[in-house]
């Protein structure tokens, strides 16, 4: 198996799906000759041509809305929002249309589309190139929301998303694109939607995270191990529908839970994770369900000091883990 970056794994998965199924096409801003602003579709325009690699006008609502229509007419569109921060103009199409079409038509119509969005901060992207949006989309029944944390999952989950009969929001943390590497098999495989993964076993507490935050957790966890505290780590992988079973099982085993997310604290997706635990595992808990999150400010500032203040990191997580361990 070759070691690849996140971006390479996503590119491989997307290319293989387009080679496998000619109904799959990509549409978005600058996905053509430019290959996408992060290079995910680099080389696609040459390989697949302008009919399957479509440079859209600067119009997120019709990018999502036309993907819906194309999906209804037999295609398998993979739409790209250049940044998750710019997906808001498409929220009506994604939340009110794509998510509700199967339900409102009583199963007659369905929307097999994927919307890819780079999200997350820590890259000097400032207020509008750093946002986390999983809580907004995760709250909408009818949408499957995915966040891979490693190249293997990224490729396998993207293939599963493209083959799913319903709309999938596929969120890629920009900080992981080139930083996170891992072994990725050549050729075809999928990773099932809707399943979280225990990526590290432990007996003293459970840390629940996804995307870039998972890697910060794993760093903190090594430290804790040195201090004699074994932390079990759950990678949520599919934000919604949430795999409560895996999370609750782990917490029942360890008795302590720490939820980590980069998004603004109030109403972030970790709140649902925490509430699900408080509902199903209360008598197993030996301490509060703590959260390490971004603060409740509108978004991440550009300057270094304030961006750093905003971002959760291994130190902040470590601090919370020690507090919880001492509890």
């Amino acid at each position: 198996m070759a070691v690849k970056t996140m971006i390479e794994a996503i590119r491989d998965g997307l290319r293989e799906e387009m080679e496998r199924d000619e109904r799959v096409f990509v549409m978005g801003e600058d996905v053509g000759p430019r290959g996408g602003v992060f290079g995910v579709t680099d080389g696609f325009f040459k390989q697949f041509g302008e009919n399957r690699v479509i440079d859209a006008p600067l119009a997120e609502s019709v990018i999502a809305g036309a993907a819906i229509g194309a999906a209804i007419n037999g295609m398998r569109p993979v739409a790209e929002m250049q940044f998750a921060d710019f997906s808001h103009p498409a929220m009506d199409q994604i939340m009110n249309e794509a998510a509700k079409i199967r339900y409102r038509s009583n199963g007659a119509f369905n929307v097999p589309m994927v919307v890819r969005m780079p999200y997350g901060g820590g890259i000097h992207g400032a207020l509008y190139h750093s946002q986390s949006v999983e809580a907004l989309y995760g709250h909408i029944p009818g949408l499957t929301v995915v966040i891979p944390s490693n190249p293997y999952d990224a490729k396998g989950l993207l293939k599963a998303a493209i083959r799913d009969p319903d709309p999938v929001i596929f969120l890629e943390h920009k900080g992981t694109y080139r930083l996170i590497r891992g072994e990725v098999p050549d050729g075809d495989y999928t990773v099932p939607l809707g399943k979280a993964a225990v990526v590290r076993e432990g007996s003293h507490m459970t840390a629940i995270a996804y995307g870039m935050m998972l890697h910060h957790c794993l760093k903190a966890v090594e430290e804790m191990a040195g201090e004699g505290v074994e932390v079990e780590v759950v990678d949520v992988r599919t934000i919604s529908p949430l795999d409560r079973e895996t999370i609750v099982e782990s917490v029942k085993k360890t008795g302590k839970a720490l939820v980590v997310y980069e998004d603004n604290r109030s109403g972030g997706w970790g709140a649902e994770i925490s509430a699900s635990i408080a509902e199903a595992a209360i008598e197993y808990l030996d301490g509060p369900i703590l959260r390490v999150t971004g603060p409740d400010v509108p978004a991440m500032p550009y300057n270094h000091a304030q961006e750093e203040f905003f971002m959760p990191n291994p130190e902040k997580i470590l601090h919370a883990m020690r507090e919880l361990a001492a509890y």
Partner: protein
Amino acid sequence: MATSTKSKVDSNGRRSKSSATKSQHEALGLGKEQLLDMWYYMLLARSLDERMWLLNRQGKAPFVISCQGHEAIQIGVSFALERGKDWFLPYYRDLGVCLALGVTPRETMLQHFAKRDDPSSGGRQMPGHYGYKKYKIVTGSSPVATQFCHAVGVALASKLKGSDEVTVVSGGEGATSKGDWHEAMNLAGIHDLPVIFLIENNQYAISVPVPKQVAGGSVAARGVGYGMPGVEVDGTDVLAVYEVAREAARRARAGEGPTLIEAKTYRLTAHSSDDNDRTYRGREEIEIWRAKEPIPKFRQYLLDSGVATEEELGQIKQRIDGEVNDATDWAETQPVPSADDTLKHVFASPEEKAQWR
């Protein structure tokens, strides 16, 4: 101007009626059978619509939204399409379109009563939210104008697949104020997509009149800005609408690109059964338009042109009354949706997933 090179249609609107020598339908190559078909569907739409209001007043259906005044537009356009091949993305007034494309009176009444077997939504959506996969009528929602984006996607898929399907998407003039309408028009123009934007301009968006809705006052005049013909047509004249729609469909099928049609008419009822239009428009205005409305106008045409006799029209009316009564009585007795099904169809079921390719 951008469009003139692309179309024979005069894109600054106002088309002159067809040549005076031949009668209007002869000039269009339409025979008696087609004309009486058109009449049948126009009158069926009106009759079902009137029945729905009656049922609403009787407390048997909480909501009605009406096609009255729009029948000539809806039937004229539908007859320019190939049933079962072309796509239609309607809005909530398009009962006439649905009927002309194959939806039955019984299916219509199942929706009106929100019955379990309503093929549009199983009673989940309000009446007027059409969607019939077997007739290639795409499910619609309440948020105005979202369908324009879906339509360009459907048309894009047709182009990618090399199919010569035509897609028609409709909405009111108020819908043209939405960003989605603009984004869809632009994408359709860029890729010369086989799609027709049908704007049924009935002078009001609930209470808001055209001068407070459409800057410049003309929807058709916006076509040129997207490099497509913008055609204005008398929406109370079914044959005039048929003529422009046929040309638009020809253009689309021939790969000549999209067309914007603004069909002007008047909303003869209140916006819906929840509206009270006395707060914002005078009765005189309504009377003026009633005099021009599509049903009597086409009836008169059929008689004057000698296409049909009073007697023939009477037989059609009888047939329709029977169908409306049958549909109402039958649908009323059909089962209602069950609470147990509320959780169904959020995602594909395991069985549906297993079969999915």
